[in-house]
């Protein structure tokens, strides 16, 4: 939660809202990559990519 609040404060202060979707996608990718290595959700990810 603290991270999301800080991220929002940053985007708001710097008026860089356009970066929000980019950051979300990058983080989702990172999370997927981390979880896909040997986890139960790996087959799910393989069907998407």
């Amino acid at each position, binding site marked *: 939660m*603290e991270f999301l609040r800080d*991220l929002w404060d940053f985007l708001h202060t710097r008026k860089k809202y356009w970066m929000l979707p980019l950051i979300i996608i990058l983080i989702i990718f990172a999370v997927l*990559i981390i979880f896909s290595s040997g986890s139960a959700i790996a087959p799910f990810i393989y069907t998407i990519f």
Partner: protein
Amino acid sequence: MSGTILGISAFYHDSAAAILTDGEIIAAAQEERFTRKKHDSSFPVHAIEYVLEASGTSFNNLEAIAFYDKPFIKFERLIETYHSFVPRGLRSFLSAIPVWVKEKIFMKKLIRDELQKFGTARPRLLFPEHHLSHAASAFYPSGFEEAAILTLDGVGEWATSTICHGEHKQIRIIEEMHFPHSPGLLYSAFTYYCGFRVNSGEYKLMGLAPYGDPESGRKEELKKKILDQLLDLRPDGSLLLNMKYFSFATGLRMCHDRKWTGLFGFPPRKPESELSQEYMDLALAVQEILEEIVFRLSKKAKELTGSETLVMAGGVALNSVANGKLLQSGMFKDIWIQPAAGDAGGAIGAALAAWHIWKGQERPPITEPDAMKGSFLGPAFSDHQILSVARKYEAPFIHYPHYSELCQTVAEKLSQGDVVGWFQGRMEFGPRALGNRSILGDARDPDMQKKMNLMIKFREGFRPFAPTVLEEDIQEYFDLDRPSPYMLLVVPVRKERLKSLPPGYHQLPLREKLYFIRSDVPGITHIDYSARVQSVNKNSNARYWELINEFKKITGYGVVINTSFNVRGEPIVCTPEDAYRCFMKTEMDYLVMGDYLFDKKKQKKLFDQGDIDEIGLD
């Protein structure tokens, strides 16, 4: 609530920690000194452990922790840079972004996780900007009530240089130059092209520059090419790099080799290969351009602030040749440079910014010349710890209960051409050894530079050595009218001491030039008759002052060679054990730790030649 603030710099290069109590700098140290990895960028666990212990404060009692930059804005710069250069930079993007989205973007959590081992409290975590941290590290300890502030480095978040104004407890950022247009990165690109390591070899480029031929047409031609093609240098010192020639913004290298080869007519030098004259001329050309940039930015800083004093920090502020020329230009009445001007010093700056700007605390009165305590902010070791190392290695030694006797003995040995490792008191903070972790030699000895470079430091023969001179004797040796306690000023050796150059000197091969006797203190007289001076004051380092004074009684010379106590590729020694091992790896003749003298001839062999051959590159 205590007034103790912990400052941290980490994750890029030269991690460090510093601690303030009620605004007073109590301790600071670089992580590399503990982990023995040069320029270690890992989270400074050992340095934090040390500074907490030195301050007598437990982690749970800290008021705040200040990290030396703003990670989100750095991430913004990365994303915007890749965006503006797309499709170039894909490889660099793919290597940088995973580290960011996995770790660095969650910096707050990363830092909190790392700090868990020190205590359960969650002190306020602050993130002052990178260049504000540099500015704070330069202004608050300086002792000036008011000053223009100039910070220059590779890059922080966006800023690569700033002009600020410091007044009492406030720092106002007036102008910034933004990435990718950076004086530091320009210099680093040439560091790479001349075959040295980026982020650590810049001082070698500076040391190489005087070997360039100042009268040659080639140097002028190279300078013209740089100014015409590589950058647009404006009258106010701001610059625009021609990014067609540089690849650091998107690539994994500093510059486009092919384009530079086409421009200059010679390829990048391979690391460790022979140094030929064209690289020396190139080093001189870019050094002169850097000096011009620093000069113009300083002039602009003076115009904007109306100040008569200047303080500086950031990696470029370690360019002591530029600093010396700026001081001698008389543009400012006085100049003060943060001794840990690189990123390590950001730890002190971040903590000071938190104390004076976030907390709004007034600056304490400074009774000393500055608040850095001679930069002796690292750990000290007791006699007991020295003796336990001696026992561990079964090392014979002589104990001198009276310091004056030890001084006399060591001064005599120095005057006879011996090289002495000198380990005393608290370790220095910053890249320079200032007399507590130093290797000392006789500056009058014409063979000393060669001996110390090749047999003790195992480094390139062209590298110059710096002198330590008694503060009261500075003007006998150098054209300098004030103390230089941090070895950050290169100034000319006095004319009376010089020997004239033979005709055609600049056309001589490097080795002949190098070993030409240029003055009556050849060990510290660089090829262009300059020296990177450190002066020692009786009050700030009494033991070191007394040793040099004793040397003066014997020889008539109040000056010695002082080089950092390490070998190539290793950080400066921290503990008595580091010192003893370094002593045994090299051909140093004596080691002095505290009041104990170790004679190399009497020690048992500790290393084979194979171990010595393995000494790494830097």
